[in-house]
């Protein structure tokens, strides 16, 4: 049974995974028995009562109240039980402990961004302390996305017009994949992220180190690299020349760009700035207008830094 469970389900890495898995297995086993019973009856009847002569007559059996009641009541009890079990597990998922550590999650086409209470922003990678409940306050910057960590058995849609929440507690350090499970466009299946569960001490160290990366006195291009990582730009834009959902940054600055409307321009500072802030004003030929706007998201200094970083990618 354990092996069956391990085959069907991913690693169980959150506090409520085992309850969900228990219900999953219960329904599989009780449903499996029902299916087995029906299948045996089908095969047995087909064989036992196979028509052997053309003039066979069959008995007239129209109805049996006892049977009808039986196969109404037994499933009724089963489904009430399954409902109650599912409700209990779900109620736990909906009620985060009061002392949960809060992280803001932003979904955007096509990446994830995690903002910590001290202002640190992490792109793609959600670093959390082991053994402590973490509450996610989530919002989308464009269309609906959905935050899914199979190993935690949690999933929650991110809406563009309101916050949604989810929480989890991962007892052990480890790494777990994040999927987007609400269709959001050409980069939907590439919208992957990672939850990195680390020991509490390591988490504190990481948070302090990240904080230092956002300080104002960093050189522009270096700050730009941090912005690039934090905002999850790499989900669509590579720096090694390979094509992604968006154009690569390698060799971008100063190059000649042709656009979907047939026009073209040189990628100077103003072009780069416009592409960041009004992302779909000019769309490079061969790409979809999929990038969300960063107007109001990045400060002027961050935009400057990002441009400086892009210019370095030659």
């Amino acid at each position, binding site marked *: 049974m354990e092996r069956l469970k391990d085959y069907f389900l991913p690693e169980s890495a959150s506090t409520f995974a085992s309850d969900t898995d228990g219900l999953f297995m219960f329904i599989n086993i009780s449903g499996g028995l029902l299916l087995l019973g029906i299948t045996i009856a089908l095969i047995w*009847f087909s064989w036992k009562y196979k028509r052997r002569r053309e003039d066979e007559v069959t008995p007239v059996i129209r109805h049996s109240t006892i049977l009808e009641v039986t196969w109404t009541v037994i499933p009724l009890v089963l489904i009430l039980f*399954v409902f109650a079990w599912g409700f209990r597990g*779900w109620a736990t998922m909906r009620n985060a402990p009061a002392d949960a550590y809060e992280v803001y999650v932003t979904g955007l086409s096509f990446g994830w961004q995690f903002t910590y209470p001290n202002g640190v922003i992490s792109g793609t990678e959600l670093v959390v302390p082991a053994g402590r409940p973490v509450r996610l306050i989530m919002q989308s910057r464009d269309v609906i996305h959905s935050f899914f960590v199979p190993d935690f058995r949690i999933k929650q849609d991110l809406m563009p017009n309101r916050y949604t929440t989810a929480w989890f507690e991962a007892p052990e350090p480890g790494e777990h994949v994040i999927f987007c499970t609400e269709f959001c466009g050409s980069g939907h299946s590439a919208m992957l992220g990672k939850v990195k569960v680390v020991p509490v001490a390591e988490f504190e160290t990481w948070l302090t180190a990240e904080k230092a990366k956002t300080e104002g006195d960093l050189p522009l291009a270096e700050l730009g690299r941090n912005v690039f990582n934090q905002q999850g730009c790499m989900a669509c834009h590579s720096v090694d020349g390979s094509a992604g959902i968006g154009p690569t940054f390698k060799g971008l600055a100063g190059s000649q760009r042709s656009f979907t409307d047939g026009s073209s321009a040189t990628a100077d500072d103003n072009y780069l700035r416009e592409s960041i802030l009004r992302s779909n004003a000019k769309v490079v030929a061969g790409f979809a207008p999929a990038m969300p706007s960063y107007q109001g998201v990045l400060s002027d200094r961050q935009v400057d830094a990002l441009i400086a970083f892009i210019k370095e990618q030659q």
Partner: protein
Amino acid sequence: MTNTTKPVAIREFPVEEFPETHYLNATKGLKSWMLTLDHKRIGLMYLASVIFFFFVGGLLALALRLELWEPAQNFMDAETYNRVFTLHGAVMIFLFIIPSIPAALGNIFLPVMLGAKDVAFPRLNLASFYIYLGGAMFTLYSMAHGGIDTGWTFYTPYSTNSGSAVISMTFGVFIMGFSSILTGVNFITTVHKMRAPGQTWGKLPLFVWSLYATGVIQVLATPVLAITLLLLIMERTLGIGIFDPALGGDPVLFQHFFWFYSHPAVYIMIVPGFGIISELISTFSRKVIFGYWAVALSSLAIAFIGFLVWGHHMFTSGQSELSTVVFSFLTFFVGLPTGIKIMNWVATMYRGSIWLATPMLYAIEFLFLFTIGGLTGIMLGALSVDIHLHDTYYVVAHFHYVMMGGTVFAFLGGLHYWWPKFTGKMYNETLAKIASVILFIGFNMTFLPQFVMGSQGMPRRYFGYLEQFQTLHQYSTVGSWILGVGFLLVAYYLIVSLVKGAKAPSNPWGGRSLEWMTSSPMPAHNFEHVPVVIHGPYDHHQPIAEFRMGIDAPHHDTTHA
């Protein structure tokens, strides 16, 4: 002057075998088909159309499965893939499965099973066919003009912003909705008003009951889809701001509107299938159906409860938590009437005289596949488990077990059951059985691995995927090829049957409902007499002569009043 008070003589009308003149050749020429008011011809035109669109949707599915052979790009890019899966869903649902059983097989057989000359509104019936074709044209147009990449669910705000042909596609679906409503109105009226003398509600064939329940859903639910799609079109063209948060709208509202139709629509798709299975199980077990009223009324119960569960598509959407709990609770109650049906069908086979002809083979395969579809539905109704499984391949596998393992297998069963009746030709029984088994194997090979993938966390609508899922994806793809071979075989022997099949007798399976009491193919007006119904449609213990009763007067001299 009415003739209802006149004393009438009732006598047996032996069936004319292999008639020279029947509905297929009563009138000739293209015009006699294009402008026909004969429900059987309209049903045939529907049948040809839905089979064509099933072929289109099937090719799209094969392309998707082939692309998924590799975790990364194989032969189409992400944008194309997204358009192909959207079209596969939209074509299969709106162009194939919704009209498949009611508008094609239902149109041909509902009036015959009632002993009527035609449906209540023959002109409306023809209109609904052309409306359907018009909607289909819009769909084809949007395919040709860039396609649409939103998924068949058209979720906002993606669909309000996506650059693809959303308007022409949704407009096509909007138009086809009217066709569906008109068919529903027509069937409900026909069942109420056109039953032959003696054809009481308790003697209606269960296929008729299921079409009646379906008609109720079509009439009540489809207008909501129409309104929703119209609002979506207005959102895109006029920016009215009802769904798009950028304009102050609410995307979750769209999901409520959409599923308020689309969940009941699931029952528009499957309930007629239930009706076919009831016919098949009884006829091929040569036995009275067990629990007639339980089976008949459970269709209506499903139609009713089906309206109260739409929110179970939205457990992770951020709808209110109270709604989520209520919707989960109510969802389980769809399971009860469904379970009752399955048990009654199995009980009908008990002590029967079972003939494993092709239609019965499909019925038994249906029972197995649909039970899996139903039980995995229980899994998805359970709140905590659904949070994990929602929008994964588990859901994909679940609805394919219900829609394809359920409806398509029932459709195939019905097609093989009634084929001799409406074409007047038999098909090659051996090939048909082989094809049925191939389809069964191919189906399970395609979709069983998807349950496993989904449980493991593979999200749906993914162009690329993690390498750990590749083996299961490849099993699934190979399964889709087996399915393809199976359907080619079906197409082959059915075409051969049309061209040079043996002539079909009027009642090759020993059925007891009215469609077997007339010639194969049927006469243009279904019966040469007004049928009088004495026994129920499953009374296999009664002599067949008593099912061939009719009023002793020429058909055209009588009225149904």
